[in-house]
């Protein structure tokens, strides 16, 4: 049973490229892309139990604007090393008006890399080239991940959900008081 999965990051996706070229797909050593898709957990939070008082600051809180905090860890075992990247993904679901539609943007935040072998992830002294994330379908909250950076069959990695607007637990003001945490939210301040 998972020790820490109920606190902090959850594991959204995993991969290992040893499985890839033998499937007749692109060979990363031949200019091909090693790609797979994963999906953001975007269900509207159903743990909120807001009151009906329209003066409450949380009244009418929308879930149509979301932010998702993602981390990737990739590693190579041939040109070996490790790379950790963090991304912020914005998503908007706009239901009416001239801007109606669903939108998603991916923002790279930061990265740390350890090149055990000087050629890991493109070599050099700078940041690693891979992985990259791209929007595949905003409507489906679908993100396409391109992996590689080591030898074609020697990459593995994980995608973690670090926080944000997914279906998170609401611990704010509710009719059922939390036994430890003071859930009071203040009124609007002038």
């Amino acid at each position: 049973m998972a020790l820490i999965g109920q606190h902090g990051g959850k594991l959204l996706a995993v991969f290992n490229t040893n499985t890839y070229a033998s499937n007749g797909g692109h060979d990363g050593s031949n200019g091909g892309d090693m790609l797979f898709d994963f999906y953001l957990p975007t269900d509207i939070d159903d743990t909120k139990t807001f009151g009906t008082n329209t003066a409450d600051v949380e009244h009418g809180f929308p879930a149509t604007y979301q932010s998702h905090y993602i981390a990737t860890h990739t590693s190579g075992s041939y040109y070996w090393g490790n790379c950790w990247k963090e991304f912020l993904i914005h998503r908007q679901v706009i239901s009416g008006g001239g801007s109606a539609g669903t939108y998603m943007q991916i923002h790279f935040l930061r990265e740390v890399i350890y090149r055990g072998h000087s050629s890991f992830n493109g070599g050099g002294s700078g940041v690693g080239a891979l992985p990259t994330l791209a929007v595949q379908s905003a409507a489906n909250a679908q993100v396409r991940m391109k992996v590689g950076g080591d030898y074609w069959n020697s990459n593995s990695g994980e995608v973690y959900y670090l926080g944000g607007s997914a279906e998170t637990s609401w611990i704010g003001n509710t009719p059922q008081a939390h036994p430890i945490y003071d859930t009071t939210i203040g009124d609007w301040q002038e």
Partner: protein
Amino acid sequence: MAVISHGQSALIATFSAEGNDASALKKMDFVVPVGRVIDSVIAPTSGTNYTQDPIYLWKASAHANSGANYRMGAIKLGIHATGSYNSGQEYKEFVYFKHFNGGAIATLSTQTGDNSSTFDNAGNFSLAIQTASSDTLRITQNKDYRTANEVKVYYLGGGCDVTFVGRNSGQASGLGSVGADYDDRWYQSFWIV
């Protein structure tokens, strides 16, 4: 029911300098949960080309500890070090990389706050690998006053025994399983060929 967070970061180690010798740097060891097999990842056992599934060999390699199948890992930590006499505090975020030749530590960010002019002016604190084989890390904290220091280590995400919510995951809560309170698009795909 919420499928993502049942609470956020967990506290995995705390240290207090009470009783520490005044002349020595304080060195504190703790073990990070990065070496465990993630047993919530369930590999497919059937289907077209299932042995080429991105999940399949990842799962297989999770049980190996040598060569190309060595399970690498990364864990993100937040460490908060404080002094209450020559008062001040510093918060740092680190990533600890685990690999078959030991490990490495990278610093993501540092924030220092509310210092008195005499707080910890020789360098605050640092994190180093003490014993890679057991994922034991060591914090060295420079001194405030000898009885007035505290360190807290938070787990912020990454490769410990986390819950997998991707395809084939079998959490009893319904995480990752079709039909539960869960958007069943929330799977990772097969390779895009």
